[in-house]
């Protein structure tokens, strides 16, 4: 088992970061009821961990007995039926899913599953009608319609169902939903906190940590605790005992993108553009999100770029990133960005070196 999973705090009491929030959550659910919740914060800050711990707090250990399912829905939308398939994870008391995975038909999923949950409400030991919890991931990626329909269903079925929403940025969640939820912001852990966690894990695993090594990992992790623990483990596999100068291996896709960047800098031609497309395809087919590809690519390109061009290149990156979000097929826009970059850079080279 990965260390990230192994040392994930199971209960709210065990939390090593965000202890204050954990404490508040515990108080909140002490009376067996809670409002809708919206967790938001950067990736790797511990949202999911807190949500799972919270579910355990509410329902006890049964919340951990989960099964994963590929579920099919047949939805009657007026004159036609829509078939949707989505992976869900459910226990007796909660259901978790990422509705944005089905694309623009996400709203049907949200409505349908909430209705279904409302239909069979669990009855707790005291004979009181209990409630189920629906955990929705990536709410910020939900389409506008899905968010609207979510708002209505939230009100209609609030007696039987609590929602826990989880997203990276609350700015993409509509005002209406935010106001119906208790918003909980989860900050990215500070580097000190990350170091503390790493040292804790090191102690548990019986590892010798040279001074400054944990700090270097923490620094590299971009304040993502998950990232830090994962690279800690890779370092352990790569070389042990640790040396303080030890290189922290980058992710393979990051290496790959920097390779692409080198390709782009070397030659600017339609032929090269075609090769780059092939490499981007490889990234995409491995589910690396196109936004991350574009962002990382920009990052790599800027490293090698003359200061004079940085501004313009950033502008175009932003332009194509926006269009990518509006559009349907990311490759078109990533490619357009690469083409634009090549064209700018080529003109620059010609102007400078003749």
């Amino acid at each position, binding site marked *: 088992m990965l260390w990230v999973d192994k040392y994930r705090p199971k209960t709210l009491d065990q939390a090593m970061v965000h202890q204050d929030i954990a404490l508040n959550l515990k108080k909140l659910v002490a009376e067996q009821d809670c409002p809708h919740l919206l967790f938001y914060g950067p990736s790797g800050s511990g949202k999911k961990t807190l949500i799972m711990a919270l579910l355990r707090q509410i329902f006890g250990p049964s919340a951990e007995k989960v099964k994963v399912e590929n579920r099919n829905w047949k939805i009657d939308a007026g004159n036609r039926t829509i078939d949707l398939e989505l992976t869900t994870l459910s226990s007796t008391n909660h259901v978790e899913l990422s509705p944005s995975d089905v694309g623009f038909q996400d709203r049907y999923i949200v409505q349908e599953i909430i209705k279904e949950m409302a239909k069979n409400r669990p009855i707790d030991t005291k004979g009181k009608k209990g409630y189920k919890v629906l955990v929705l991931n990536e709410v910020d990626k939900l389409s506008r319609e899905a968010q609207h329909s979510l708002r209505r269903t939230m009100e209609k079925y609030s007696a039987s169902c609590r929602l826990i929403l989880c997203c990276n940025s609350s700015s993409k969640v509509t005002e209406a939903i935010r106001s119906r939820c208790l918003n909980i912001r989860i900050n990215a852990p500070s580097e000190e906190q990350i170091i503390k966690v790493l040292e804790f894990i090191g102690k548990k695993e019986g590892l010798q940590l040279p001074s400054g090594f944990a700090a270097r990992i923490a620094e590299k992790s971009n304040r993502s605790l998950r990232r830090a623990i994962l690279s800690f483990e890779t370092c352990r596999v790569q070389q042990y005992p640790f040396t303080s100068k030890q290189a922290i291996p980058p992710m393979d896709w990051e290496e790959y993108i920097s390779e692409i960047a080198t390709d782009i800098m070397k030659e600017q031609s339609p032929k090269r553009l075609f090769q780059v497309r092939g490499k981007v395809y490889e990234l995409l087919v*491995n589910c690396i999100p196109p936004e*991350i590809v574009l962002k990382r690519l920009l990052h790599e390109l800027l490293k090698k770029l003359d200061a004079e061009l940085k501004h313009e290149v950033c502008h175009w990156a932003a332009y194509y990133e926006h269009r990518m979000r509006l559009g349907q097929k990311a490759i078109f826009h990533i490619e357009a960005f690469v083409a634009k970059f090549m064209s700018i850079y080529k003109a620059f080279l010609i102007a400078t070196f003749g």
Partner: protein
Amino acid sequence: MGKRNTVVISSSDDEDYEPSSRLKRSYEKAKSRSSVTRTNPSRAKKPRLPSFRLSKESSDVDEVRLAFEDFNEVFNGFKVSAGSRRSNAKELWVDKHKPRSMEELAVHKKKVEEVKSWFEERLRTPKYLQGDIGSSVLIITGQAGVGKSATVHAVASQIGTQLCEWNAPTPTIWQEHVHNSSAGISGINYTSKLDEFENFVERVRKYGLISSSFNGNSKSSIILVIDDLPVTNGRAAFERLKTCLVLLVRSTRVPTAILITDYGNADSSDPNARWLEELQLSLESAGASKVLFNPITNNSIKKTLSRICRQEQCNVAAEEIDLIAKASGGDIRHAITSLQLFCLKPDVELDLSSSNSTPSYPKENANELTAFNGGFSSQYGRDETLTLFHALGKFLHNKRDKENVVALDQNAFCVREKFSRLPFKMDSPEKILCQAHGQSRPITDFLHENVLDFLCDEAMDDAWAVASYLGDADLLLASFRGMLTRHSETENVLQSAAASVAVRGVLYGNFHPSPSRWHAIRKPNLWQIERSLSHNQNEMLRQRFMAGSGSSSLSEVSVIATEYIPVLKWLGYRTSSGLETHDSEDDSSQTMSMIDEQESKISDDDIEDW
């Protein structure tokens, strides 16, 4: 007028069809063919059975028509009813000028020769040796109207054999069957065409065509022609047809020609067309020979048309013939029909003068006719369709005039030098799109996949312009997706706008095309990528759940892909790298040299686990 009256009188009489048919003896074949399937009142109550028509075309003896099952039955059916008789008076030229000898065929000489020698070889070889020279089935394919059937008929008459045709019997409509069975009328059994066809093929395979039972003319050999494959609806039916034909190819001894009309790729959305292709392939692999007929050349069509004009004594200008030939697109049947239409005078007078079935135009009408041409010429001509690939080729090759021939007048809006492009050497892109009836999404994808090949190596700015316009098209296609399903009009406008942007973007952007050479047009890789992507997503989620069995929460795909998977690969967990192997084989080449890099880092022992 007196002559005409006899026609009327005699045609009202069912039994007598002698008088005028003597005039048209040579056209009788065509007539009888059409009459076979005609529902005749006298036989409506009897079961319709499959029939063969055997025609000895080499002689001018009356046609002998035979059926195994019920000779009289079919013979009665042969009698032409009054209605059909009268229509014969103004016969279609297509039937009238049917080629009767190999010389008259407009098909290329070599092809005809090929078919002829094939048949001759089959017929010369004694039965017991036939196994050595391969199957005795010949597949003749080609577009509609290139003279496939005509060739077989002409060849048969040339080498003096009988033709035995599979003719689909008059169908019993299902409703009719239901009606009859509910009314308790027995006798008409509903059999599907496919069943009948299968029975027929079965018989031919097992017993051959028992020539002695025909008419004692057993010395002459027989060629079986299957011109009319039953329509199959659905995969299962098609499979049945296929097996039945493959068996025929493998085992028959009778020289058989199967004529398959090739619908071209334009209608590839129709599964039937694809199935026909599949059928051809499987027949070929079963050993059948194949001859492909190309569209008939303009010159041959023109020659034939002028010959018909001479025979019909109508005066058609050479340009008109040229035009008709061009518009027909190699379809000679269409060309002849067009010619007939063209020669029709929009006058009632024509009916009177046509009593002898040869519409001849008096000289004085000729002028009037040519004057009429201007408006007329656009009426014939098929609606040209283009295949998707043809259209893509046009867009990608971006043929333009060498210089701007359009004189710019002073007031015209002038674009700056770098924005101006030379005029197209083709129709406007929207028209081509329309002809190719492609949908905008695939067209955009195809252009995106292929356009970079057509850019000059130096032209980076062009590449950007093209990429940017394709992005615009994608944006148009994406916006409101799914939301406008109820407003199909709006959706249509949006779609065509997107296609137009994509195509014109490519045309405009490609300012410095690469020196023209042959490029294969590839299928968009994107489609494969998208399929594997969605597959991989599900797989990742599942495996993440398995691997992190303690974690009782779903992670986001992006997080798994960017963080967990690379680490798992590092750690050498085999669970995660099983991912790509689930993909279909054909993309294994493109999936992940990235994975391979990782693979090489991990020890080789792991390879067994794959």
